[in-house]
């Protein structure tokens, strides 16, 4: 490993203190996920954390609800430009999907149940996103903004209500996806709890 590295920076995985965690027994968390910080990181039952996802609890607690999927290279609890220290940094409800490269900044940010945060989205500190919302790729939510339930954010910040009413179907799809992911991703929660 060390012979392959050409960067003089220390590896990302070893930066920062090791975070205290509270895991449900049924979660799937990849070996190479990065959990740092000083506050508690809670992951509820049947959630999946992909490799190289970064959960940072330096600015407060990070809580992930049930049956969430956190994809690669996402950052939950980033300090970023607007992040600030609060008791709860980031809270994800149940059935939330955070797609590749998205960044959710710390500061009492709440993502509601059944919401999909698209690829490379940026969510500012203190934003409150309602239930069953969809943020299309590269959407940006300003700090402190409130997005009502069933909203689609698309095309550089345009918004429209989602009237399909497929939340139940989506949640079922999520359950099935988690079933597959559980077989695909070798889970190693012991690395973080130890």
């Amino acid at each position, binding site marked *: 490993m060390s012979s392959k590295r050409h960067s003089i920076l220390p590896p990302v995985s070893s930066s920062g203190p090791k975070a205290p965690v509270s895991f449900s027994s049924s979660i799937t968390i990849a070996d190479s996920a990065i959990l740092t910080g000083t506050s508690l990181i809670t992951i509820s039952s049947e959630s999946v954390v992909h490799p190289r996802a970064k959960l940072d609890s330096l600015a407060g607690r990070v809580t992930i609800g049930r049956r969430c999927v956190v994809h690669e290279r996402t950052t939950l609890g980033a300090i970023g430009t607007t992040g600030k220290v609060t008791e709860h940094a980031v809270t994800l409800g149940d059935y939330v999907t955070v797609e590749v490269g998205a960044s959710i900044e710390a500061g009492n940010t709440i993502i509601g149940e059944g919401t999909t945060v698209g690829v490379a989205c940026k969510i500012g500190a203190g934003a409150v996103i309602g239930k069953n919302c*969809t943020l299309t790729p590269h959407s940006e939510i300003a700090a402190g903004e409130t997005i009502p339930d069933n909203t689609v954010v698309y095309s550089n910040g345009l918004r429209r209500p989602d009237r399909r009413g497929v939340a139940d179907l989506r949640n079922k799809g999520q359950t099935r996806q988690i079933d597959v992911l559980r077989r695909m991703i070798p889970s190693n929660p012991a690395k973080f709890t130890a």
Partner: protein
Amino acid sequence: MAPLEPYTYIQCPCSDFSPLGQPADASSPTSAEEEEEEHTFDPRAPRSNFGLYPLEYLLYCEDCHQIRCPRCVAEEIVTYYCPSCLFEVPSSNLKSEGNRCTRSCFQCPICIGPLSVTSLESAPPDPNLLSPDQGGIPHTTYCLTCSYCNWSSTEIGIRFDKPNSIHAQLAKIRNGGETRLTAKERKERRKELSSHRGGGHAAAVAAAAAAAAASEEAEVVDLETQFANLKSFYNRQLADPNASENSLSTLGDLGFSSPSSLSRIMNLYTGGRLNDTRTKSRLGIMREAYTPSEGLLVANLDESDAIAKLHQTTLEDTSSMDQLMAQPPNLGEPQLHGEACFASSLRPIPYLLRTKRSKRCPVCRHIISKPEAKIQNTRFRIRLVAGSYMPSISIKRLSLPGANGSSSSLVAGDFLEPFKPVHFVLTFKNPIFEPLKVTLGTPAKTPGRFPSKVTVLCPTFDIDANTDVWDEALKDNDRESSVRNTDGSGSSSRRQRAGTVGESGQFQVEAGKVWGRGRNWVSIVVEVVPASLQLRNKDDVLKEDEDILEIPMFVRIEWEVEGGGDDDVSGQSAAGRSGAGTGEQKEKRELAYWCVLGLGRIKQ
């Protein structure tokens, strides 16, 4: 400001008013040259904006031996196709069904993303329904959904019974799910009506008309329906012999309601079908429509409904101008006074068809670009690109090691210092299989407010033919040894530096000699002394991009072709042998054009 990548633009002769526009005449090169000197091409003139193209944009006519730009070719449509399903649409369908895809390809009315057909279970979904092995649900409906903005046609109340031929189904459904009469059904209904009339019983006719009017009044009249109603009404009027009994026939020839002017207008629409002698000879006045079934549309000026709705909605619920523009015309469009102003009344947009086009030379009508007719195939049958007929010019900033201290760190896009001479290497690459003779001409000072001095150190040179790479490789052994013998400096075998080695061991640029030479390329040096961008008056301002140092350069290339099949130089086409002379004697060809070299920005 971002530094500038050097560029070469070539002027198409079509934008020029000089004799260059005509095919070059090899017999009188001097006279053309003299005329050229009278006006130097100014790359900043407003006219130049429309005549300068990168080499890649240009085509070449083999018969006229001229450059052709996208502006001066004649285009012909080869095929029409849908960009979504790549289905070729015959041009006969185009006339009857319009320029949109009539299969199941739709764009989202909100975000123009592609829509896909998804099935909707009519039964409330229970947990087991998602499993793929259930297909025996008796009544499945379908809707169009956008996977990007999550729009679904259920939002405007449109569901489909079957997953295919969505276009035909959509034409029958009004927003909200009510059915709508198609043109064909309307015609049938009218036929019924006229058969009643044919019976001759006045009371029966009146009753039938009233019934029809009542039924159609219940239906909202959209623009298409109104047009069809009006059209059939006027057709009936023209055909009706009773109309001429009207007593006001003396006024008949005036105004819009006169049959003669009306039949003329109808002829415009229907393409002369009504142009029979009977209607022409008949005079008489016609009445206007006065029921909705005849096409009368009372303006609905009461907009309180829309205003009340606006009070309950936000700005995001109204449709934007772009969304309205993208709506297909006449497809269930509401009447003029009730135009869709809410996003909830927008309909899916059938994809606009696209075309594949072939290009012809405007002078000799020969095809210079022709795509493959099959939609899936992106290749071209004929494509005479200019890049395979004329030398490409690439520009590199020359940094002479040791000439001045800082020059080693020069990058091509760096700013140019005023009054400090800089050298650029221009590399001409010959694409044709004949040796080229190149003559360059530039004005001594660039045109414009800030004249920079330009010197081409070697304005005349020859480029070797673009021979086969393998020939070259096989010959290389002999040549390498010869190069070693003559020059002995151990430089690469392909490159012969013409610059002499100075006393301190560095290369120096020498006038009249080429800088480098290879199999089919020659590079020369241009010396430029950039002007200062000091403005004389305080009120003057630097115009946009006026700090770019652009050199107009006149390029004349000459080559010889053998009489015979030598014209297919690029190997792309065997067409265009008309230029070949008789017998085996050599024929001289030449091509002359202006080009513009953008070298970089001058430091302010």
